C-alpha cells in the first residue's frame, strides 16, 4: 500500500515542531492539521490534545515531527527523532525540508523498536523504494474546511461507508475549534495552521444572529395567528375551499405561508441541506418582494391603471364579439362542410345565449373595473409572484365563457365517443367486462342488435357536428391554458429557483464541492510524489437540481401523447396539477 499524507499548504513554511493530525481508520493515510512549534513541554502538548479531542470529537494525535532547517538550529534533527519515544504511536512520520529544495523528504518509523531500527538501517540502502511509496497531497485548509462534498450525506455515524476523501473532508471540518487558537496568542503552545483574518467583521454577523432570534419569535407568532384565522370553519365550507384551491392567488398565499414557517422556525438549522433550504427561500423571497415593488413603482405612475382598465373592457367586449361571429359562422356551412342542420342550430343558439349573458355581465362590471384593478395591483407589494398569480386569476375569470363552452363541447363529445365505442363492441358481438377489465365475447338478441345498430348509425352521423364545435372550442381553450401555464411556470420558477446556492457557486465555488482534482507538482528526483488537491465545484445544472425548492409545481400533468389522447376522447384538461402530490 501507498502511504498518503494530506498536508495543509499553510504549514509549508512553518518552523520545526510536531505534526498534529489524525490517521484515517481503515485507510493508509494521514491528515496533518497543524504544526506545534518548538519549544514545547510534552506534557502540555498531551493535555492540549486531550482537551481538543473532547471538543472536536476527532481523535487527534501527534503524527510525527517536522523539521525546517534554519540557521542556528542544526541539532534539531536528532532531537526530533528522539521525540518518537515520548508520544505513543504506531507509526512516526519524520518530515523534513531541505534548504534550497521545494520537496520534502519523509521517513516512516514503525512502532516496535527493532523493525524500526532495522528499517532505519535499510533506509540508506533502498532509499528510492521507500520514498516512492509516499504521496504528499497539499490542500488548502480553509477551502476544505468550508466546503461541502456532494452528494450530501447527512448521518454522521456512517464513517465506515464513507470513502477516504469524505472522511478527510469531515476531519478537517470537525476540527474547526483547533483553528481558533490564534498564532499571536500568549500561551504555552505555538501552532501553525489556517488563521481566520477578520475576527472584527464577524461581530456584526454575531449581532445579526442575536437579533434574528426575537424577530423569528415575533414572526412565528404572527404566522400562528394567520393559521388560526385560516382554521375558521367558514373557510372549510365546500364552495369556499373548492374555489380557493382553484384560484392561484390563494394557492400562492398558502405556499408563501409554508415557506415562512420553514424560514422563521426558531430551531437552528442543523444540517447543511436545511440551512441551504432556509437561505434559498429567504433570498428568493427578498428578490420577489424587490421585483414586486419595482412593478408597483411602474404601475402607479402616470395613471397607468386607468389606461389599463380602459383597454381591458373593450378587449373583453371584442373577444365576445369575435366569438359571436365565430358561432354564426359555425351555424352556417363552416369551411364548406355540410352539417346536421337541426343539431347545428340547437348548439349554436345555446352558445349564442351564453355570449349574450356574458356581454351583459361585462357591461355591468365595467364601471368598477378600474377600482378593482387599483386595489388588486397593491398585491404586488407582497411580491411579483402574487402579482402574476392575480393576473392569472383575472385571465381565468375574464375567459370564463370560453371555459364553459369548452366543458359543454367536451362533455357532449365524450358522451358520443363513449356511446360509439360501446356500440361498436356490441356491433362485433363483444362486451366490456367491468369485473375483469377486459373485452369478452357475448351473444345478443336480435332486438338488442337492431336497436344498437340504429343508435350507432345515428350517433355516427351526428358526430361530425359535435366534433367541429368541440374542436373549435378546444383550440380556444388551449390558447388560454397555454397563457395560464406560462404564468404558472414563471411563478414556479421564482418560487423554486435556488438563488442563494447559485450565488454561492458563483462567488465561493469551493463551498459546493462535487469532488476534488489533483495536479502533479513539479517533481524533483529522489523525493516522494507531490500532488496539489483542489476543489472541483459543482456544475450549475447539478446545483439547480440539488437545491431546487420543492413546489406544488404546475407543469402539465401528462406527457404530450397522453394529453393528445385525452383531447381525442374528450376528457377535460386543466393547466394546474391536482394539488395532492408534492413534487420535487
Amino acid at each position, binding site marked *: 500500500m501507498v502511504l498518503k499524507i494530506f498536508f495543509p499548504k499553510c504549514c509549508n513554511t512553518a518552523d520545526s515542531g510536531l505534526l498534529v493530525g489524525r490517521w484515517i481508520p481503515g485507510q493508509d493515510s494521514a491528515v496533518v492539521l497543524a504544526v506545534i512549534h518548538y519549544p514545547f513541554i510534552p506534557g502540555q502538548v498531551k493535555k492540549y490534545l486531550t482537551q481538543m479531542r473532547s471538543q472536536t470529537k476527532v481523535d487527534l494525535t501527534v503524527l510525527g515531527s517536522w523539521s525546517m532547517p534554519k540557521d542556528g538550529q542544526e541539532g534539531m534533527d536528532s532531537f526530533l527523532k528522539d521525540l518518537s519515544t515520548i508520544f505513543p504511536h504506531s507509526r512516526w512520520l519524520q518530515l523534513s525540508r531541505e534548504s534550497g529544495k521545494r520537496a520534502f523528504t519523509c521517513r516512516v518509523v514503525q512502532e516496535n523498536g527493532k523493525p524500526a531500527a532495522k528499517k532505519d538501517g535499510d533506509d540508506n540502502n533502498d532509499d528510492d523504494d521507500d520514498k516512492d511509496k509516499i504521496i504528499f497531497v497539499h490542500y488548502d485548509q480553509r477551502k476544505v474546511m468550508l466546503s461541502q462534498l456532494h452528494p450530501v450525506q447527512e448521518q454522521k455515524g456512517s464513517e465506515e461507508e464513507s470513502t477516504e476523501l469524505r472522511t478527510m473532508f469531515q476531519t478537517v471540518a470537525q476540527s474547526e475549534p483547533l483553528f481558533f487558537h490564534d498564532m499571536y496568542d500568549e500561551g504555552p503552545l505555538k501552532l501553525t495552521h489556517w488563521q481566520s483574518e477578520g475576527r472584527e467583521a464577524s461581530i456584526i454577523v454575531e449581532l445579526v444572529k442575536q437579533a434574528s432570534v426575537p424577530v423569528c419569535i415575533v414572526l412565528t407568532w404572527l404566522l400562528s395567528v394567520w393559521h388560526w384565522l385560516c382554521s375558521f370553519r367558514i373557510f372549510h365550507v365546500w364552495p369556499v375551499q373548492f374555489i380557493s384551491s382553484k384560484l392561484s392567488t390563494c394557492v400562492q398565499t398558502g405556499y408563501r405561508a409554508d415557506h415562512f414557517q420553514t424560514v422563521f422556525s426558531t430551531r437552528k438549522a442543523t444540517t447543511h441541506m436545511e440551512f441551504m433550504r432556509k437561505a434559498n427561500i429567504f433570498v428568493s423571497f427578498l428578490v420577489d418582494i424587490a421585483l414586486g415593488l419595482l412593478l408597483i413603482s411602474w404601475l402607479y405612475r402616470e395613471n397607468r391603471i386607468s389606461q389599463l382598465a380602459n383597454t381591458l373592457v373593450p378587449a373583453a367586449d371584442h373577444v365576445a364579439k369575435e366569438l359571436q361571429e365565430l358561432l354564426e359562422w359555425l351555424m352556417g356551412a363552416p369551411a364548406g362542410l355540410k352539417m346536421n342542420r337541426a343539431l347545428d342550430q340547437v348548439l349554436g343558439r345555446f352558445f349564442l345565449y351564453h355570449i349574450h349573458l356574458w356581454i351583459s355581465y361585462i357591461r355591468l362590471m365595467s364601471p368598477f373595473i378600474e377600482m378593482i384593478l387599483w386595489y388588486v395591483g397593491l398585491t404586488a407589494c407582497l411580491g411579483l409572484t402574487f402579482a402574476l398569480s392575480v393576473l392569472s386569476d383575472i385571465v381565468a375569470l375574464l375567459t370564463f365563457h370560453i371555459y364553459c363552452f369548452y366543458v359543454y363541447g367536451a362533455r357532449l363529445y365524450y358522451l358520443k365517443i363513449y356511446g360509439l365505442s360501446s356500440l361498436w363492441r356490441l356491433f362485433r358481438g363483444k362486451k366490456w367486462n367491468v369485473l375483469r377489465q*377486459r*373485452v*369478452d*365475447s357475448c351473444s345478443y338478441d336480435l332486438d338488442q342488435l337492431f336497436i344498437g345498430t340504429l343508435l350507432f348509425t345515428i350517433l355516427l352521423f351526428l358526430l361530425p357536428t359535435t366534433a367541429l364545435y368541440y374542436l373549435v372550442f378546444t383550440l380556444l381553450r388551449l390558447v388560454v391554458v397555454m397563457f395560464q401555464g406560462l404564468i404558472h411556470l414563471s411563478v414556479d420558477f421564482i418560487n423554486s429557483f435556488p438563488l442563494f446556492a447559485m450565488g454561492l457557486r458563483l462567488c465561493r465555488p469551493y463551498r459546493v464541492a462535487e469532488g476534488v482534482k489533483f495536479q502533479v507538482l513539479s517533481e524533483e528526483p529522489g523525493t516522494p510524489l507531490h500532488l496539489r488537491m483542489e476543489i472541483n465545484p459543482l456544475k450549475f445544472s447539478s446545483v439547480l437540481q440539488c437545491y431546487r425548492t420543492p413546489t406544488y409545481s404546475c407543469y402539465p400533468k401528462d406527457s404530450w401523447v397522453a394529453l393528445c389522447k385525452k383531447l381525442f376522447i374528450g376528457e377535460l384538461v386543466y393547466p394546474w396539477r391536482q394539488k395532492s402530490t408534492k413534487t420535487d
Partner: protein
Amino acid sequence: MKSRRRRGDKQAAASCQPDAHPPAPHSPASLLPSGTARRSSQKKHSICMVSDFFYPNMGGVESHIYQLSQCLLERGHKVVIATHAYGDRRGVRYLTNGLKVYYLPLQVMYNQSTATSCFHSLPLLRCVFVREHITVVHAHSSFSAMAHDALFHAKTMGLNTVFTDHSLFGFADLSSVLTNKLLTVTLCDTNHIVCVSYTSKENTVLRAALNPDIVSVIPNAVDPTDFTPDPGSRDDSKITIVVVSRLVYRKGIDLLGGIIPELCAKHPDLCFLIGGEGPKRIVLEEVREKYQLHDRVRLLGALDHKDVRDVLVQGHIFLNTSLTEAFCMAIVEGACCGLQVVSTRVGGIPEVLPDELVTLCEPTVSSLCAGLESVISRQRSGSVPPPAAIHHQVQNLYTWRNIAERTEKVYDQACQQPVLTLPARLQRLRSHCGAVAGSIFSFMAVINFLFLLFLQWLHPVHLMDAAIDASGPDSCWRKSFKKGKSKDPHPD
C-alpha cells in the same frame, strides 16, 4: 433471467459430452468420436448467424440458432450471431463458451421483426462481417426481415450465403404472395438452403421456384437429457392432457377451445394443463368460465424453457393442435418425456415421429376428439408402453451433434460454390424473378452496391479494428476464462 439461462446452457453443453461417447446405432453423428469428426472437415468457417429471433425472445428458431452455434463452436468453427436489440439489451454480449452476439439497434416493426428498407442495415452488418472476418452468412427464418436484408448485403459483399427456413406458408392470401415473392428474390442467388422437413422443402421449393438440388433437409433436434420422463410426478388417479405452445391462431387454439368442453363432459376424471401465453388466451378463459371448469383446466401462463419439462412430466397425453407446422419440436419434447402424443396431421408433422409414438388426426374438433378418446381408452386399459421405453426410443432420433455435422457439410458445399458477380447476379434476378420484380430488385441490388462503395470510401476496411477473438482458436477462451471475463461489462 440471464444467469438462470446461462446455467442451463452450461448444463446443456456439458450434457452434450457424454452423449457422444457410447456409440448409438441410430445416429450417424455418434458413430464418430469427436476427434475424427473434427478432422473430417478440413476447413474452419467463420459463420455469422443472422436472424431477428434470438434470446431473450423464446421459441423454436431461437433455441435452434443457439444450440447449433454451440455445437459448431465445439467443432472449432468461429460463430457470431447478429440480431436486433431487445429493450435495453443492445450492443455486444457474450454467452456460454464465448458465443458472441451483436444486438444491433434496428427498429422493430411488427412481431419482433425489424422494419426493412433493404439499405439501412448495411453499415452495421458490413461492420460485423468485416471485423469478424466472416466467410459464411447463415440467415434463419423467412419471417425475419433482418435475415433477408443480411442475405442481400452478404451477396453484395461477395460472401457465401446459407438460409434456413423454419416455417410453412400458404400460396393463396395476399401476405403469402408478397412473402413468397420476397423469398424468391432473396433465395434465387443464395448458395444453399436448409429446410427442417421434407414437407417444408417441398413448400420452399415451390414458393421460391428453386432448384431442389441446392435445398437440404436438416431437422431440428432436442436435448434428450433436458426432457427425461418422471412418472412419479403425475397424478394417476386422473388423466391429464398437456398443451404447451404459444396461444396464437397458428397453433390451433380455437380447436382446443372446442375440444375442452366436449371431452370434459364425457370424462369426469380428465383435466387439462395448458402452458404458454398469447392473444388467444382469452378464448380458453372464456371456455373455462362458461363451462365452470376452473378446477380441471389450468392455465399456467408463459413458461421459461427450463420449466417446460416439469410441466410435461405432470401429464399423460401431449396434445398438439397446430394448423400449420414445418417441424414440430413440441411433440418430440412431449414424446421424449414419455407422453402419449396426439397431433394434427399438418405440414411436416407426419415425418417427425414413428407411427407407434404418435396419434395423428385431422385438424377438426371431431377428429381430434376421436383420437384423444382412443388414446384415453388405451391409457385406461394400461396398454400403453411405459414412459421410459418411449424416452429410450426417442432420445437418439434427433441430436444437435448430428445436426451440426450435417450443417457443416452444407457450409463446405456452399463455400465451394462461386458467389455471383454483380452482372451475373442481375441477370439471374431478371431471368428468375419475372420482369417487373426482377427489374426492381436488380435496381435495388445496383443501389446497394453503390451504397457499399460509398461506405467503403467513407469508412474504409483498414480503419476498422478486427475483433479480438474471444473464443480463440480451438476455444482457448474457456481455458483462460479470466481474461475474457474482463472484456464483458456484465459478467453476471
